[in-house]
C-alpha cells in the first residue's frame, strides 16, 4: 500500500479524496433509492459500525491492536442513558459527555498499558471490556442490572432523521481521519507502527502519541455509543461485551488495517453479510464467522489490499 502511494505521490491523494467525495454523495443519496424501514435500519447499522471500525483504526496506525473497543461503547452508552433518564438531559448534551467519559477511560487505560511494550495492551483492553460487562450485569437498579436501561429519549423524530444524523456523523469521522492521517500527527503514528524504536530514537515521545491516539479513538467510539443508545432507546450490558469489540476488530482487519478505506469496506461488507444470512437461522453466525476466518486467511492485509492489487494490475495493463 505504501509503495503504491509513493509511486503516484500526490495523485493518489486527490484520487482518494475524490473517491471519498463520491462515497459521501452515495451515502447521502441512499434514502432516495432505498425505501422501507428494514433497509434503512441496516444502513444505519452500517454507518454505526463504520464509525466504530474507523475509530478503532486510529490506534492501529501505531501497530497496537485493541480488543476492548466495546468498553468505550458501553461506558458512553450508559453515561448517556443515565444522564437522560435520571437528569433529563437531551441528546445534544449526552452525546458529547458520553464521548468525554469514554475518552477518559482511554486516557487511563492507555497511560497504564501503552508505556509498556509487549502484549500488555491488548490483553488489558480485553479484560477491561469484560470487567465493565460484568459490573453492568450485577449493577444496582439505577443502572438497570442485566436487562439494562430502557426508555431513553429518541435522537430524532423519524427514521430518516436518524439515518442522516448517523450518516453525517460517519462522514465527518471519515474525513477527519482522512486529514488526520495525512497530518504530521498521522505520520508520527505511522512511524511508530513501522518502527517504534527508531521513532523513539528520532526524539518522538511515542507514549504520548499512542495515548493521544487511543484517547481520540475512545472519544469517537463513545459518541457513537451514545448515539446508538439514543437511537435504539435503550442501553444493555451487551454493548460492553467483548463480542462487540471482536466484531469491530474483525471489520477493520477484514477491510484492511491502518487505512481509511479498509474499515469502511469492512464495516459495510460484514454488516451486510450478517444481515444477508438472517434466513439461515441458527447457522447464521457459524457461516458468518467462518467467512470472516476464511477472508482473513486468504487476505491477511484486508480486502482493500486485494482491491488495490486488482486495480493496479488493470491500470498497468491498460
Amino acid at each position, binding site marked *: 500500500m505504501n509503495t503504491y502511494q509513493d509511486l503516484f505521490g500526490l495523485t493518489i491523494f486527490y484520487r482518494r479524496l475524490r473517491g471519498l467525495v463520491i462515497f459521501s454523495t452515495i451515502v447521502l443519496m441512499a434514502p432516495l433509492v432505498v425505501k422501507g424501514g428494514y433497509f434503512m435500519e441496516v444502513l444505519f447499522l452500517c454507518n454505526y459500525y463504520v464509525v466504530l471500525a474507523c475509530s478503532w483504526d486510529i490506534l492501529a496506525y501505531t501497530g497496537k491492536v485493541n480488543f476492548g473497543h466495546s468498553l468505550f461503547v458501553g461506558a458512553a452508552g450508559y453515561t448517556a442513558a443515565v444522564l437522560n433518564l435520571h437528569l433529563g438531559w437531551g441528546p445534544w448534551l449526552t452525546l458529547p459527555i458520553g464521548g468525554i467519559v469514554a475518552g477518559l477511560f482511554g486516557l487511563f487505560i492507555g497511560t497504564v498499558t501503552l508505556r509498556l511494550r509487549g502484549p500488555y495492551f491488548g490483553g488489558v483492553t480485553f479484560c477491561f471490556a*469484560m470487567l465493565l460487562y460484568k459490573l453492568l450485569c450485577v449493577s444496582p437498579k439505577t443502572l438497570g442490572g442485566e436487562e439494562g436501561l430502557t426508555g431513553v429519549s429518541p435522537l430524532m423524530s423519524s427514521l430518516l432523521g436518524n439515518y442522516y444524523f448517523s450518516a453525517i456523523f460517519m462522514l465527518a469521522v471519515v474525513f477527519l481521519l482522512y486529514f488526520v492521517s495525512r497530518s504530521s500527527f498521522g505520520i508520527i503514528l505511522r512511524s511508530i507502527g513501522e518502527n517504534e524504536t527508531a521513532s523513539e530514537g528520532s526524539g518522538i515521545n511515542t507514549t504520548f502519541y499512542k495515548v493521544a491516539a487511543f484517547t481520540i479513538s475512545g472519544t469517537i467510539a463513545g459518541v457513537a455509543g451514545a448515539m446508538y443508545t439514543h437511537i435504539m432507546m435503550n442501553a444493555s450490558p451487551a454493548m460492553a461485551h467483548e463480542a462487540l469489540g471482536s466484531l469491530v476488530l474483525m471489520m477493520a482487519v477484514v477491510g484492511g488495517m491502518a487505512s481509511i478505506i479498509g474499515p469502511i469496506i469492512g464495516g459495510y461488507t460484514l454488516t451486510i453479510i450478517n444481515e444477508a444470512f438472517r434466513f439461515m437461522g441458527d447457522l447464521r453466525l457459524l457461516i458468518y464467522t467462518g467467512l470472516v476466518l476464511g477472508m482473513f486467511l486468504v487476505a491477511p492485509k484486508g480486502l482493500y489490499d486485494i482491491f488495490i492489487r486488482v486495480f493496479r494490475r488493470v491500470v498497468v495493463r491498460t
Partner: protein
Amino acid sequence: MSALLSIFVLGTIWGAIYSLIAVGFTLILGVAGIVNLAHGAFYMIGAYLAYTFMSILKLNVVLSALLAVAGVAVIGMILDQVGIRPFRENHAYQVVLTLIFGQTFCRQVIYAIYGAHGKSVQNFINGDIELAGMYISYQKLLIICAAIIVVSLLWIFIKKTKIGKSISAVEQNKVASILMGIRYERVYMITMGISAALAAFAGVLASPIIEAEPGMSSFPLFKAFAIVVIGGLGSMGGAIIVSLLLAYSETAVSYLLSANYADMVYLTVMILILVVRPTGILKAGRMN
C-alpha cells in the same frame, strides 16, 4: 474452621485448574511469543470433548480424557502450522487470527453442534473421605492430584527430554538454537500442541464441576492473561504460584462477599502490578 477448610479445598481445585491453563498460556508466549487468544477455546473444546466421549459415547474416564486432550492438541498444531506459520514474526497478525479462530469461530461451531444449553459431565469417581469434620469427595482429590502429576510431568519433560530441552533452547535464544541444528518450526508446533493439551486437560478436569456452555472460553482466557502478567511473562513458576493465590483470594471473596465480585480481584491486582511492577512479581527484565 470448616469454612476455612472449604475455602482451602475449593481454592486448591481452582488453583490447579488455573495453573494448567496459565502454564500452557505462558509456555507458548515464552517460546514463540504468541499471545494465544484461542487458549480459552482449547479449554472449552476440551470440556466439550470430555462430555462427548464420556456422556454421549459412554467411554471409560481415562480413555475419554486422553482422547479429548489428544484431539485438542491436534487442533492446536493444525492452527499453528496452517494459520500462524506463514506469519511467524507478525505478532499483531497472530493475536487477531487466534481471536477470530478461538473466540468467534470455535464458539459458533460448538454452539451449532451442542446448542446453547449447559452440558455437565457425570462424576469421574464417586465416594468421599472425611477430613476434620468435613467431607471431601474423591472427585476433588482426583482433580488436584491429576493437575499436580501433569505439571510435574511437564517439568520433567522440559528439563530431561531432548525435545523439552530444545523447547527451552528456542525460548532462550532462537538464533543460537537454529545454529545448533534445532528445527525450530517443529519446536513451535510441539509447544503449541503441549500448550493446547494443557488447556484441554484443564477443561476435562473442570467439566464435572462446571457446566460447559459456548460462552465459557472467555473467562479462563482473561484469567490466564492476568495470571501471566502478574507472575511475569514466560515464567512458569510464577504462573503456578499466582494461579493458586488468585484462586484462594477469589474463593475467599466469593465466600465473604458474593461470587459476582470474585472476577474483580484479578483485574484489580493486574492493574496494580502493571502500574507498580510491570515485569511481574517473580521475573526480572525481559519485557519484549
